């Protein structure tokens, strides 16, 4: 007999398993919704490619998919540069801030992400001064169950967010990096979306279809301006 079938689950075990299944399903649903949101955003960003290349396409200046992809790549990278120079400057400002601080103090070993939080919520030089921090090394927070050391209580709070003048360089750097980095990633995502859109357009615009073609119908007049491409 299959040993799996021999497993007997208690009522409590069944409830736990059902709860876990619902949690997993909910997690995947949330991820699916977030992914759909990203896909829609990228489709919206990719629409900019239509604006960039529409003039040359509608005027029949580009005549092949390869020409369209090449032209769209040039226009896309130019548009990306126009979008990205501001976040890049913000990032450079953040880096320059740290470099100026190190040059002034003559301390090039400064760790931006250090967690020197000072004492009793005062002082400190790192980004940890702006965070809640708990002491997970406190042995009193743990207990031993069947030989395994598990967390038994909420650890002791060792730092609350507080402002420190010594860490102001770190604040400026972190703020610039978060803002500039996010902005730059969004611009890169738009660049990727436009590139995908350009590839789709190059296949779609020059596509010829015979779905509604009837061999028995007379051909259209050669001077008809509504001649499809």
């Amino acid at each position, binding site marked *: 007999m299959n040993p799996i079938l021999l497993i007997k689950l208690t009522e409590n075990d069944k409830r736990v398993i059902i709860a876990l299944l619902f949690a997993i399903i909910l997690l995947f*649903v*949330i*991820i699916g919704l977030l992914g759909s949101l990203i896909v829609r955003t990228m489709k919206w960003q990719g629409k900019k490619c239509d604006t960039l290349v529409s003039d040359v396409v509608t005027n029949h*200046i580009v005549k092949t998919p390869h020409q369209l992809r090449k032209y769209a790549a040039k226009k896309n990278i130019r548009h990306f*540069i126009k979008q*990205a120079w501001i976040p*890049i400057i913000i990032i450079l400002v953040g880096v320059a801030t740290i470099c100026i601080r190190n040059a002034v103090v003559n301390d090039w070993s400064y760790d931006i992400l250090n967690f020197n939080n000072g004492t009793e919520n005062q002082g400190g030089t790192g980004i940890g001064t702006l965070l809640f921090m708990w002491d997970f090394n406190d042995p009193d927070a743990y207990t031993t169950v069947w030989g395994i050391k598990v967390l038994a209580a909420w650890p002791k709070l060792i730092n609350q967010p507080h402002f420190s003048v010594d860490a102001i360089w770190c604040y400026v750097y972190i703020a610039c990096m978060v803002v500039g980095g996010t902005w730059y990633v969004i611009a890169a*995502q738009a660049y990727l979306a436009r590139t995908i859109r350009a590839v789709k357009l190059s296949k779609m615009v020059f596509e010829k279809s015979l779905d509604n073609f009837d061999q028995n119908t007379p051909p259209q007049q050669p001077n008809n301006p509504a001649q499809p491409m």
Partner: protein
Amino acid sequence: MVDLLKAFGRGILYILCFPFFLVALAIFAVIGLLAFLFQLIKSIIFFFTGQKFFPELPEDKELRLMREAEQARLNPQPQPANNQPQQGNGLMFEETYDEDDFLEEPTPAVAPLPKQTTIEEVVFEEEPEEEVPPTPAPAPKVEAPAAQPQVQEVKMPEPEPVKEEKQEEPLDDFLDPFEAKEEPVEEELEVYRPKGTTDDMYSIDDDDDTDSGVNINFDD
């Protein structure tokens, strides 16, 4: 429920594809950064050579030339049409002067004539033989109706005779379309006549009008 299951399936799909998306995003971010640095170096060179930051692409140049040719085909002589409104003072006309063009330009010239209040003031206050002093505004406006087809001879710039001719003929031509508006003026004149006067004691002579409008002469 179906939508929920679809979202669940998409969630699994996106989890599987997310690493590839991150890799593609990182590649494009790096490519973009390299392109930015490359363009930065190029822009420095372009700055010292006097070129644009983004030179015109061949396709864009071809499109621009095509549009210019199309524009030139649609508007073969756009320059004179654009310059005409700038010559609105009537002094800068060249040999291509046309009366119809002149009539179209100073459109606000129609307004100034009916000066009813000045008529009353002149009747009650001023001496009958004096002419009403010309106001500065109507002088250029009266010139517009002078260019109607009956005044084709008024092209030579002699100041005095032109002034008389403009006062005579244009007023006749000008008053005709406004007869309905002048009727209340006559009624007001009858209402506000001085006591002891009759219709024979005064007359309104439109032929002696100045630029300001109407002259009133009392015949004793």
